[in-house]
């Protein structure tokens, strides 16, 4: 059939609904496989029904491949009341395949379901589908308008008493803006349930290949988290759970010798640990982390250990695994150490409670929501700063012969006249005079253009910028601070303030 489906407009709807149904199928299969399903025949009937619906819907949408795959799975289940581990795994592979087909069908555009009751399971009937990018764009614009707002309030303050009426009107508007910003951020909140389902899946797959018997349980899946944090949370928790299966839970022989229940337990719990923070704990009843063995493994690999007594920094050391052989799963995704720095960059933290021979508990704390800004790192006189990428309109190298000094201030020649330069080192007192070579980024705002001069540019990163504490005084050139990697805090420059700084070296305000 050359014709596209007459229901092409419903593609997104189809993909989202099928994903949700696949999740139900996966969960039920995992429970049936572990014999933890409350009623296996009923659970199987549900799996069949969900697959049947996906098949029917895929047919309506004209996706033959999805129809065939789900048909095959439905057939494989029909008539069976019990499954071997191999059969369950085969069906789970089927789930994965359908997911891949769905992603292809969707063209891989991610969406979230916006709903005031995101945590209630049957939002299918009252939800609204929104492109993540659309929500992000609104959040970004609001963040921008709030930066502009703080500039406006500075100007109003300077006007003093005559502007009191303006000031009052502005305060009311600012309050509204803040509320809209908060509401827009809340649109990105999604429940953790799907993430927990994927952790369950990891435990199932890994325990099968490790030949360990492990019970998985999860609670608090209705806890909400910002969609933009979900990927990082998934990576970090995936590592922790995988490590718990591979390294944490002991082989059955060891467990029996320790008077433990032969099957291991991994429990994942999520809850709101504060008004703006959630905590996800991963608890296993395995052997705990062997500090000595970890240390030996680090030495064998020639890794540099700063503090041998600090178990946590040892655990998150890049390139460390106590495993001799590499397994299929160990090479997946980014490493635990990279995950941990990502968590920290986003304003989260991780805590560890290690009990030898009893088990390990990881506590991952994440802000419930974040407002991220894309920053470009810059370096001047060995000091690093960051500047919002949205303010940068171009980047160019400057050599000695490009630099002109006019009235003590630097400038470079451009087609449409001179571009005045602000030296970052001079501005922050790390150099006495304007550098003669370096990199210039062109900032533009309010119809004015200005070049920011420094030594060299660095990476571009999505970061959370925290405003400076008022205790630091009214340093208006700084947007806030940001953590870009392990323990490195940078100052994020306010591009608008940079446009207003006096240009001439040594000049004072």
């Amino acid at each position, binding site marked *: 059939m050359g014709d596209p489906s*007459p*229901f092409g407009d419903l593609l997104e*709807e189809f993909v989202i*609904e099928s994903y949700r149904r696949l999740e139900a199928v996966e969960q039920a299969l995992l429970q049936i496989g572990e014999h933890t399903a409350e009623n296996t025949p009923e659970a199987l009937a549900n799996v069949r*029904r969900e697959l049947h*619906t996906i098949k*029917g819907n895929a*047919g309506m949408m004209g996706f033959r491949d999805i129809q065939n795959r789900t048909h095959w799975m439905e057939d494989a289940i029909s008539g069976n009341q019990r499954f071997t581990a191999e059969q369950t795994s085969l069906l789970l592979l089927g789930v994965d395949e359908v997911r891949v087909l769905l992603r292809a069908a969707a063209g891989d555009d991610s969406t979230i379901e916006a709903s005031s009751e995101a945590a209630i399971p049957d939002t299918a009937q009252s939800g609204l589908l929104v492109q993540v990018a659309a929500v992000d764009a609104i959040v970004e614009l609001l963040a921008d308008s709030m930066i502009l707002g703080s500039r406006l309030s500075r100007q109003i303050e300077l006007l003093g008493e005559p502007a009191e009426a303006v000031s009052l009107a502005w305060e009311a508007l600012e309050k509204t803006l803040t509320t809209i910003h908060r509401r827009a951020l809340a649109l990105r909140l999604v429940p953790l349930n799907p993430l927990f389902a994927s952790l369950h899946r990891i435990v199932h797959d890994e325990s099968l290949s490790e030949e360990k018997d492990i019970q998985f349980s999860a609670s608090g899946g209705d806890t909400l988290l910002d969609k933009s944090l979900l990927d990082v949370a998934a990576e970090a928790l995936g590592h922790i759970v995988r490590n718990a299966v591979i390294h944490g839970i002991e082989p059955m022989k060891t467990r029996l010798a320790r008077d433990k229940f032969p099957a291991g337990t991994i429990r994942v719990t999520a809850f709101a640990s504060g008004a703006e923070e959630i905590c996800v704990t991963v608890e296993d009843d395995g052997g705990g982390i062997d500090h000595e063995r970890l240390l030996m493994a680090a030495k064998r690999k020639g890794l540099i250990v700063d503090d041998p007594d600090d178990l946590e920094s040892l655990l998150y050391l890049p390139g460390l695994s106590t495993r001799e052989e590499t397994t299929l799963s160990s090479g997946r995704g980014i490493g635990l150490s990279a995950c941990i720095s990502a968590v920290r960059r986003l304003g989260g933290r991780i805590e560890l409670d290690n009990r030898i021979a009893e088990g390990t508990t990881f506590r991952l704390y994440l802000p419930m929501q974040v407002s991220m800004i894309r920053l470009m790192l810059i370096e001047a006189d060995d000091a690093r700063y960051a500047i919002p990428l949205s303010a940068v309109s171009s980047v160019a190298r400057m050599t000695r012969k490009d630099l002109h000094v006019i009235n003590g201030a630097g400038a470079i020649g451009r087609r449409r006249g001179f571009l005045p330069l602000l030296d970052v080192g001079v501005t922050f007192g790390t150099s006495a005079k304007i550098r003669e070579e370096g990199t210039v980024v062109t900032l533009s705002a309010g119809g004015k253009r200005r070049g920011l001069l420094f030594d060299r540019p660095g990476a571009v990163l999505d970061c959370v910028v925290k405003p400076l504490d008022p205790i630091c005084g009214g340093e208006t050139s700084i947007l806030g601070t940001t953590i870009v990697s392990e323990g490195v805090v940078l100052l994020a420059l306010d591009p608008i303030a940079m446009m207003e700084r006096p240009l001439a070296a040594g000049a004072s305000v």
Partner: protein
Amino acid sequence: MIRKILVVDDSQLLHKMYELVLRRYVVHGTTILHAYDGVQALDLAGIHTDIDLILLDVNMPNMNGIEFLRLRNPNPVLACIPVIVISTEGKERDATLALSEGAADYLTKPFDPSELHAKIELILDKWNGANRANG
């Protein structure tokens, strides 16, 4: 003329599809009622006594389409609303079962919008004819 159609399907997607088809082919001002399983369908049919047509999925949680048909049969008001049963390719047995339980017609997924339209026309013609004969 159709004034009220009850759509019974557990898939939100199918509800949207029916809405697209019905809005395209059926006169404006038609009310579409939505139920997501047999139980909700019985509830809605109890409240709205002027439903002209029911589109019924077979494969649903809580109460499936066949069970719905069996439960509505003893109710004289419900029993005379024409029902089009929607089954899925490979489950033609469901359709036969539904017809024996009093469904007026059936359609198999995947279907074309025009097929659904034709079935609706056919059913309503037949039904209107029967009504005239009775009156």
